[in-house]
């Protein structure tokens, strides 16, 4: 019971900081100015959101939801790679 209270209260305090940093990431996405900047911001946003989802699954007491974090991290990486390929190559299949 002590553990539950401890975990819940600490996480509840930490979550606003997470949300603020997400907002700051989004500011960078909106400001740009270039595509790599935006992608970089999305990249960090995605990884941190993945971690956030993992953390949130403890707070929401639904351990089974944790896989979504992994999925987000993986496909944000994939998104990175697509944009990188776009910038580098002449054709996507190259």
């Amino acid at each position, binding site marked *: 019971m002590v553990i539950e209270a401890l975990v819940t209260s600490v996480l509840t305090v930490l979550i606003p900081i997470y949300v603020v940093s997400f907002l700051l990431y989004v500011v960078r996405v909106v400001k740009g100015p270039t595509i790599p900047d935006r992608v970089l911001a999305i990249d960090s946003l995605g990884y941190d959101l993945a971690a956030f989802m993992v953390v949130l699954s403890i707070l929401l007491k639904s351990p089974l939801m944790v*896989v979504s974090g*992994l999925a987000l991290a993986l496909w944000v990486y994939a998104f990175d*790679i697509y944009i990188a390929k776009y910038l580098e190559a002449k054709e996507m299949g190259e």
Partner: protein
Amino acid sequence: MNLREAVIAVSIALMIALLAYTIGAGGLGPIAPSRLRDLAVSYLINTYNPWNITKSALSLEAVTAIVWDYRGLDTFFETSVLFVSIVGVALVFRGYREKLGLGGKGLSEIVKTSTKVLTPLILIAGISIAIHGHLTPGGGFQGGSFIAVLLVLMSVVFSLDFVIGSGLTSSKLLMLRSIGLVGVLSTSVALVVLGIVLGTHAYIFQNIAREGSPLSMPTWLLDRPTGGTLLFFNLFEALAVAAGLSLAFLVLSLRESEVEEALGESEWYE
């Protein structure tokens, strides 16, 4: 903003205003209700209910149970839509010839090696999500799309040459997809066929014994429930989706030089 745009804007605004008003006026029940719709309660009670087995899917996961058992027909035709779309892409690009040796440098060595390391991990994560579809969140489509995005990733990172060269040609993917779909189809009618053989009645998409049709799929494997047909559906669906989506991407990302020959030979007869 010209007149046409203004008309569109106004009508859309009207639509969303109506929608918002409907929601605000309680058209969909109270906002953030504390009681569920009764149908949802029926599903939740029955999803794993050994005490009322004729209504149950014997799956711990209510969403997978609804997707593949209670509303299995929807999902079957959803897979068909995917099938139609993938074959449609093949139709629009028909006549292409996959060519090896068009060259392809892919991305840098570091990305290549990292993706190489990731490959088995993503693959096993996808398979794991598919085979635990009736126990944890996930299922056939989720697992299959994991694997499909892996193939997309490989064709981007290593180049198309690498993917085709390692044996994943479009006809092989088509074959895999057909196997998956035929698996889904035969799982859905398996008990009907068995019922005809044994002389009893069974429904299409039947999973566990129902009133008047006593046939049932195996419900336990070792120490966990299998959800009857759900395990098979998830596996076949994962195969079909993985093969199908990568096929579609493969065809879409063909290089222009591979397609332009096919475009030259006109086969337009009206």
